[in-house]
């Protein structure tokens, strides 16, 4: 099932661009859905149904002056958004979106890289992504930025533990850290969200916190902190932080689909990537729905929820799954 | 590690030393096709993480008491 290296390269390019398009239309979808949920119209000027709005936003951001605070640390201030963006995009490399195809006597795999440590790789990249926030907050040399960076850092590290533990049950059932193996196992047996309902719930909560979306958007609580770690950023540098956040959301939705909802599996097999896309779309819509309906938590509530509710539930779930797996086999 | 006076830098240097040992363990594990080196590299990692937890906890506690962060002046055990 190996493929020539240049096919991987082409695939990587295509996927990165597809993710950027998906990101652009996620912002559109978010604004449109939020508006409809609040009895508004949302963007409707640029193009039919406001469909050209993301491009208008992009042009506006790129054309803005790339503002630079006097007190900022020069190289770090510029590097921080790049780190965020890079880790967000790189994580998608190991998520499988199809079963693989035979195109003109070349075999094309349904993922960019098939590695045995795929799951750990995603978590590792996610944890490196924290640096974007903390370096950006520190290098801006501003109190609001630093406070936002501290909050981001504490929140992301706390919820990463729950995120990693919540998928342990899936790993035990799939008996692999390889995402392709896990999806194939689900195709052969049952989608894991049924036996791993507790794991899925913990995963979704931790996922919302990891992408710092409402109601866990303490790092960017605009009523308390102006805008969090990217207060001092403007133009496309701010745009990169924002993009990284949305791409993280799409990647983690893809991971959730892969781990709990059978990945590319669906009623009609050749439509694999379409099923995958639809499931991710459903997940993203749920994210937006939650944003529209739940108020923000207080900081101590957030920490207490992470350490005293999610972590024990995830641990107990993993232990019970391990016992059941041993008992069955 | 011996030269710097800031406990934060001392901890960072300690990490470098542990990682040097880790690299040697991994390299010989690969060279001799023996997994034991990798196991001990992982154990070293865990120990390093624990050591950092305690070290940083001490530094934060010192900072709360407004004690200057200088290893030469931290010569007494009484808080």
């Amino acid at each position, binding site marked *: 099932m190996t493929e020539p290296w240049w096919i991987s390269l082409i695939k990587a390019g295509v996927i990165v661009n597809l993710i950027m398009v998906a990101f652009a239309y996620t912002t559109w979808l978010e604004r449109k859905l939020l508006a409809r949920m609040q009895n508004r119209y949302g963007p409707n000027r640029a193009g039919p149904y406001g469909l050209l709005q993301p491009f208008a936003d992009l042009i506006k951001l790129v054309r803005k002056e790339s503002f630079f605070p006097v007190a900022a640390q020069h190289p*770090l201030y510029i590097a921080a958004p790049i780190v965020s963006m890079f880790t967000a995009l790189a994580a998608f490399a190991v998520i499988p979106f199809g079963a693989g195809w035979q195109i003109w006597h070349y075999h094309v795999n349904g993922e960019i890289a098939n590695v*045995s*440590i795929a799951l*750990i790789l995603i978590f*590792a990249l996610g*944890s*490196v992504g924290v*640096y974007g926030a*903390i370096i950006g907050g*520190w290098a801006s040399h501003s109190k609001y930025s*630093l406070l936002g*960076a*501290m909050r981001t*850092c504490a929140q992301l*590290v706390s919820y*990463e533990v729950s995120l990693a533990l919540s998928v342990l049950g899936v790993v035990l059932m799939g008996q692999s*850290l390889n995402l392709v193996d896990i999806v194939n196992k689900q195709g052969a047996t049952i989608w894991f969200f049924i036996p791993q309902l507790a794991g899925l719930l913990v995963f979704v909560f931790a996922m919302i916190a990891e992408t710092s979306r409402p109601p866990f958007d303490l790092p960017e609580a605009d009523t308390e902190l102006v805008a969090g770690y990217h207060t001092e950023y403007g133009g496309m540098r701010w745009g990169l932080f924002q993009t990284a956040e949305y791409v993280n959301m799409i990647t983690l939705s893809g991971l959730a689909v892969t781990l709990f909802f059978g990945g590319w599996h669906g009623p009609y097999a050749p439509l694999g990537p379409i099923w995958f896309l639809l499931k991710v779309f459903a997940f993203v819509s749920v994210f937006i729905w939650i944003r529209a309906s739940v108020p923000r938590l207080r900081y101590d509530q957030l920490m207490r929820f992470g350490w005293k509710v999610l972590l024990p539930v995830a641990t107990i779930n993993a232990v019970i799954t391990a016992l059941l797996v041993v008992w069955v086999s | 590690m*011996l*030269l*710097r*006076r*800031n406990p*934060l*830098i001392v901890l*960072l*240097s300690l*990490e*470098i030393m542990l*990682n040097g040992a*880790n690299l040697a363990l*991994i390299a010989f*594990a*690969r*060279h*001799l*096709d023996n*997994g034991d080196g*990798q*196991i*001990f*590299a*992982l154990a070293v*990692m*865990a120990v390093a*993480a*624990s050591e*950092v*937890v*305690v070290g*940083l*906890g001490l530094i*934060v*506690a010192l*900072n*709360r*008491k*407004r004690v200057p*962060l200088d290893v*030469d002046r931290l010569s007494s055990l009484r*808080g």
Partner: protein
Amino acid sequence: MTVVATVGNVLVWAVWVLAAFACLGSGVAVVSFSNPFYSALALIGNLGSLAVLYLLLSSEFVAAAQVLVYAGAVMVMFLFVIAYVDPRLESPWAGGPGWQAIGAVLAAAALLVEIIVVIGLNADGSLAHSHDVGGTFGSPGYIGRLFLTDHLLAFEITSIVLLVAAIGGVILGSHSRRSEEGVAPL
């Protein structure tokens, strides 16, 4: 086919040399920056290049664990504390009397010579050629099997060490807060 293999080998060597030099350079940078924040960032670079070296040594699980544990948890904590205590800048070579510097360099040199002599004496030529490793070497399954069979005791002791450290961290944090409340501020 051979051409492709050669290109691959050159690429591996290039990455190898690059990672090794990045590792050394960032290691020097850690001890010579005057700002601890930059030192910590250099250490992250060091750990990252070490992870690349581990990958080249076909220890992929250890490499991933390195990034996850060190870069993901330990160094984030470091940066958090450095940003929190905001330490003053310090010239790297200002601290400590001169004899300490000389002593440190001499001790390091002596240790290096000792290590080389000991390895050279004990290896008996078994290091002359490298062994071939199987495809599963360094995979999560391989590591897990070793941990739960040959090295169960080390595994358990490590977990106890981690638990003790976690409890210690919590106690250190809560203790200093209590004393701060009890004692009048200076």
